[in-house]
């Protein structure tokens, strides 16, 4: 809209600001809560201004953890989450770009059947297949291990589909030129397809990293050894303690710490992320 309409502008901004406030407020509360002492929440009123216990709370979480709920310090859990999120993001990208490559560029029997089978799994979220998957993972002895945390989540119809759509926009002549230039399939993939997919890969990495980081149900099922707890499920354990009040100040400190890595990844890769979503470079 080119014309200047102050009233409309005002209303638009009001709605946008209201939306931002709604999103930001709980995060703000978490940050505030993590700076108070353990008894500041007993009154039922949540304080809105920072307290004085920030250093103590964070050092407890990073150092010893909450002993009463049996969770380890946040450090190892953050590390577990990082391993899982990276594993899931990288694994998904590798698997899906390769399967998209096969589906788009190779003529093999039942090619479209293969594509539709992958596509159909979009309809089946992890929760639907969680029992059989658990059984398989348990039988393979992968409980309480990184492979057990990562591998079952890797297969991704969404990413395969996105890569397929992207590959379909690459002109056929590029493949033909590469064939004339003596590039075999793998060289074509490595020299041409992969560099062209760079921004898409970056955008997907951001999405998948956050997705992997936020996994809750699956780590809850396959890990019983605190050494493999991820931070998201660890927080849940801290909040449900028997025979005492949850130490909300400490829980919130863990929440804030758990929030940081995805935020860092998103901010660091924001440039590529936006580019990957909007750019149609050919």
């Amino acid at each position: 809209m080119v014309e200047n309409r102050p009233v409309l502008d005002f209303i638009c901004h009001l709605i946008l600001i209201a939306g931002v406030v709604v999103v930001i407020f709980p995060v703000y509360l978490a940050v505030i809560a993590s700076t108070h002492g353990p008894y500041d929440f007993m009154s039922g009123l949540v304080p809105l201004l920072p307290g004085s216990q920030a250093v103590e709370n964070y050092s407890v979480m990073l150092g010893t953890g909450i002993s009463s709920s049996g969770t380890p310090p946040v450090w190892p859990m953050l590390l577990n989450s990082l391993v899982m999120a990276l594993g899931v993001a990288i694994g998904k990208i590798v698997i899906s770009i390769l399967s998209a490559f096969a589906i788009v560029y190779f003529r093999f029997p039942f090619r479209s059947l293969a594509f539709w089978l992958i596509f159909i799994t979009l309809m089946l979220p992890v929760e639907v297949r969680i029992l059989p998957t658990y059984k398989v993972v348990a039988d393979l002895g992968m409980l309480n291990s990184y492979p057990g945390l990562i591998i079952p989540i890797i297969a991704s119809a969404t990413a395969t589909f996105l890569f397929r759509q992207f590959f379909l926009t690459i002109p056929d002549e590029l493949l033909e030129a590469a064939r004339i230039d003596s590039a075999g399939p793998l060289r074509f993939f490595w020299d041409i397809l992969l560099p062209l997919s760079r921004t898409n890969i970056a955008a997907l990495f951001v999405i998948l990293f956050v997705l992997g980081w936020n996994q809750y149900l699956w780590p809850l099922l396959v890990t019983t050894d605190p050494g493999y707890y991820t931070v998201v499920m660890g927080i849940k354990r801290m909040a449900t303690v028997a025979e005492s009040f949850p130490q909300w100040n400490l829980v919130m400190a863990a929440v804030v710490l758990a929030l940081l890595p995805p935020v860092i990844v998103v901010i660091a890769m924001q440039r590529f992320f936006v580019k990957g979503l909007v750019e149609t470079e050919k």
Partner: protein
Amino acid sequence: MASIELKGVSKTYPGNVQAVSGIDLSIADGELVVLVGPSGCGKSTLLRMIAGLEAITDGTVSIDGRVVNKEEPAERDIAMVFQNYALYPHMTVRRNLEYGLRNRGTPRDIVNQRVAEAARVLEIEPLLDRRPRQLSGGQRQRVAMGRAIVRQPKAFLFDEPLSNLDAKLRGQMRIEIKKLQRTLRTTSVYVTHDQLEAMTLADRLVVMNAGRIEQVGSPTELYDRPQTQFVAGFLGSPPMNFIPVADLATGEAAEIQRRAPGVSVVGVRPDGFSLTSGEGGLALRARLALIEPVGAESHLYFSWGRHTLIAAVQGRPNVVENEEVTLTVAPPRLHCFGSDGRRLESA
């Protein structure tokens, strides 16, 4: 450099769609052959079969005396220039030029030398470190040609390489391609739907229609003595006028029948009409509907019965629109075609 030999080459797509049928053509070493025809006539398919990008249903393609039907494009040692250039967007111009050579394991110093040489010939030296996206259409076209040249292949295949350029640039690049081909003397097959491009570039012209070759010959040969009505109508701008013999005056029709028995259509090039009266041939009384001055000559559109006739005359004619004029055609300027569309030689 090499000769290319096509024997009975056919292409049938699934669903029994015959795109190309029974093409016999031999292209001599160093020759520039242009395949021309309306869209969908199979010329691109034929080129892609020579390149190895399209499987050959029937017949054989040989390059340099060796049948290459089963070979991959890379093994055929040909280079191709695509309509949309097909440059690798993420590589610099230099990398684009080098890519084919590197994949073949050419030694570094030879690669550098060939790229430098091609860049010099095509005058793209200042562009070597840019990306395709930063180049204009004409520059991209040069890079695409450079990519073909550096390989020093047995043959160049051009697939409508100029159709993405504007008219002026197209004319310029046409001349450059011709010069380049003259210098390098590399066997070339060039596909276009633009008959002007075809006429000016070709050593030999192949006119195709509906998957078959209509006529092969030098551009002037095809223009002067088209063997079919299709070739006659396709080459030349403005196109040839076709007049059914049945519409002619009885005396004229009889005279033409006598000279070329079986004639059903006579063709006259626009420059074959004369506004001054002449002896023999045809004299058509027509009304001038429109004058189109195009510079050195003028195109006159006449209504003659239910036909529109186009005449091209030098300079500015001294006739006005809506005037009744007698158009005459000298007998040698008449092209006679039988009812099957084939040329009939008149006695």
